[in-house]
């Protein structure tokens, strides 16, 4: 009898909880992490990229605010300062992608005399293995928090520099200058990157 009462009681509690949840305003659906593979950075010019679009934008847009960052070989630039007409910037965090839940409101580094993501092995986003295979490996645990050209927030990490995202790339045999990135874009203008 006592047991039955307990069960009924706990069921009641659960009922209450679920009731209250239903009455509260619907939370925004969680942001989706998108993997964009094989971004081609082999051109003689930069390959321009928009987080809003989640895709590349044409070269003809290079003077507009339609792009946030651009790739050329191992170089990554942002639409700001010496690189573009916008105010896009980046903050580099040493963390897991899932740990960066909130974009800071200040502290974004723009392209200037030095790039916001510095070049060089173990200096910015990649490690260069040198001989014999000369492989470029994106540094794990580097999360780039971006303030876009249009003032929105996003975070991304670089997963691969080789076409087809091979598990163990070989710098001599695999085709390089193809980026695979994982990103989360917050379209509502808030700093929430959950």
């Amino acid at each position, binding site marked *: 009898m006592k047991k039955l009462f307990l069960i009924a009681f706990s069921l009641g509690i659960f009922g209450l909880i679920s009731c209250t949840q239903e009455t509260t305003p619907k939370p925004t659906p969680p942001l989706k992490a998108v993997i964009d593979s094989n971004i081609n950075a082999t051109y003689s010019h930069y390959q321009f990229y928009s987080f809003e679009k989640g895709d590349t934008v044409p070269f003809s847009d290079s003077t507009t605010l339609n792009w946030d960052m651009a790739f050329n070989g191992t170089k990554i630039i942002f639409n700001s300062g010496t690189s573009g007409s916008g105010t896009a910037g980046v903050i580099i965090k040493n963390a897991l992608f899932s740990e960066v839940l909130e974009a800071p409101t200040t502290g974004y580094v723009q392209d200037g005399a030095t790039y916001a993501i*510095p070049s060089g092995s173990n*200096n910015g986003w990649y*490690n260069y293995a040198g001989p014999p295979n000369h492989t470029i490996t994106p540094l*794990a*645990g580097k999360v780039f928090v971006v303030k876009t050209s249009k003032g929105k927030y996003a975070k991304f990490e670089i997963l691969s520099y080789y076409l087809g995202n091979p*598990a163990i790339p070989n710098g001599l045999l695999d085709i390089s200058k193809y980026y695979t990135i994982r990103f989360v874009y917050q379209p509502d203008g808030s700093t929430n990157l959950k």
Partner: protein
Amino acid sequence: MLRIILVIYFGAVATILHAQQVDSTFENKIETENNQIEEIVVTATKTETKIATTTVPLSVIAKKYIQASGTIKLGDLLQEQNGIQLSHFLGTGVQLQGMSAEYTLILINGEPIIGKNAGVVDLDRIVVGNIKRVEIVKGPVSCLYGSDAIGGVINIITEDIGIIKNALDFSIQYKSPAIVSSSILGNYSKNKVSFENTIVHNFSNGYHTNKSTVFKEGSPYNDFTINSRISVRANQNIQTGIGLKYYFSTLHNKDNYLNSSNENMVATQRDKINEFAISPYFKFVKKNIVFNIKNYNSYYLFNSLFNGENFNADLYNDQLKQFFTKLETQLDYTKNGHLFTVGTGGFYNSIISNRIENKIKQHQEFVFFQYQYDWKNRIIINAGNRTDFPSDFKIQWFSPKVSARFNVNEYFSIKISGGRGYKAPDIRQQYLNFTNALVNYSIFGAEVALQKLEELESLGQIQSYSIPIEQIKSLVPEKSWSANAEIEIHPIPSKLSFTANYFRNQITDLIEATPTAIKSNGALIYTYFNLNKVYTQGVEVNATYHIIKGLSLTMGYNFIDAKNVEVLNRIKNGEIFRRDPITLETFRVSKKEYGGLFDRSKHSFNIKIYYENKKHAFNTYLRVIYKGKYGWSDINGNQILDVAEEYAKGYALLNFSFTKTFKNKYHIMVGVDNILNAKRKYIPSMNGITGIVGLTINFLNPNK
């Protein structure tokens, strides 16, 4: 040219025709009637000491075993020893107690070998044909020898201790696929004068297993070593003499490379080394006093050149010219078990290299002392210190050490030691000025970096600095604290023995090149800094069992744990990551996943069985050497050893040899190395199963 040289020196053999004794006088000492060990060593205390009274971890490779194994390369010989691992980057180096090869001091007859490549003396420069024995002291010995002796000292002895018997000996060996080694040894002693001379020649046509490239895994080479020593025993007290060494080697190879328009081209490699050393000495012995003056002069000339077809500039060009001269005196006084040693000296070193802007001149003075007390062969205590005064630095370096041995009873003894070691920054770390245009980076030595960066800055070639420029400063030596504790057990004295050694070394101020600035063309500039901290610790266990007369079994096991302390701290702080290549998820590397320093096996062991049959005049020598898996290279780009793909598989070598002696004069040796056919692409000496045949002739019968 080679043929002419060969003809001359084989001709010389034919005309001289004499003989030598198989066992040196030294080894006769070992096998006294009741098998009491009376082996004399010189490396542990810089004086002649009985091995049973040494207070530090020490091992000796006797000539008997060197000959029985038919080894041609010093690396192959050392690799068969417990607690030794080789490294194969820019030549063959040797690691002791898990420390990198640049922390092992290599000596020949107590004198340093000059001419290092990336801080390492290439073992392939040292021939085996004239070695009488090798003494290995593990743990720091900077208290006697100064710089580089952090992991220990390997002293290659080519001279006899004691009386030199007349001998003439010729030896020739062939090792498949392509090495021929031959040597002549001649000792002559009359009245007060003795003369020792050896000529060793090694020749290889190279070998080639992967026919898809022009690169030969085994480079064709040719080297000559001539060693001579004249000693005069003027009277009972005074001995003087002079040693000479000449070494010449050439190496050729070819390799494919892609030029800027991605065409397959062939590059030619030519390496050449000339080395000359002259070392006069004077020794005074009276009752309980030994006084030594030694002068050592060495000249070293090295050139390595890669040329490409239709390529204007050299792909690689490294030139080094070094002159080193050293004067050292030492006084030993022995009385009632007390030994006092004082020594002082200095050296001058000059270097010219195409990778260093100016000629570098350095000198350094030093003074050392040592006190040892031997209480009835039961308790032996040794304490010493060496102080170095280098010209490049305003500071002095102190290297104290204390060690003790307790012979508890005939079954049991203990050795304990602790002390400091140091390694001076090498010339490259101080003065290098090198730009690699192909890979697009520059490295500057710490002494010249500021000036170089200012020059580039004034030309507008610096894009940015990665660190505040004020952080660039003169390097200080890398320093270690080390401890060793060893127990020795003889359950059946002179038949069965065990030793177990625990060691720990902590090195601070490790010098490493780090990115300092970025040029406007995107090229990185590196400078050397005192940055890192590593530790190595481990256990070395040895067992020797003389089963029956002539048959002995030795076994060794070595465990090594070597880690970078900075990496451990960063792992603790969650700052090191890795990405799973399949799921693309990122993880924090855990302490457990960190595999420590690259290029050393955590576990290794060896088993050796030596059998000598005096009645039928033959011996056999079987060796099994196992090296466990070791960190090979960083594949996932986080710069540490952490995932399975970054390890190279372990391997086992099984080597067997058989020597038969005829008429006490002719020794015929046949052997098979690497019977299990192990192969490693980056270890040129491990190219599968190899055969060895050798012939040694003693023209003089030592028993006469």
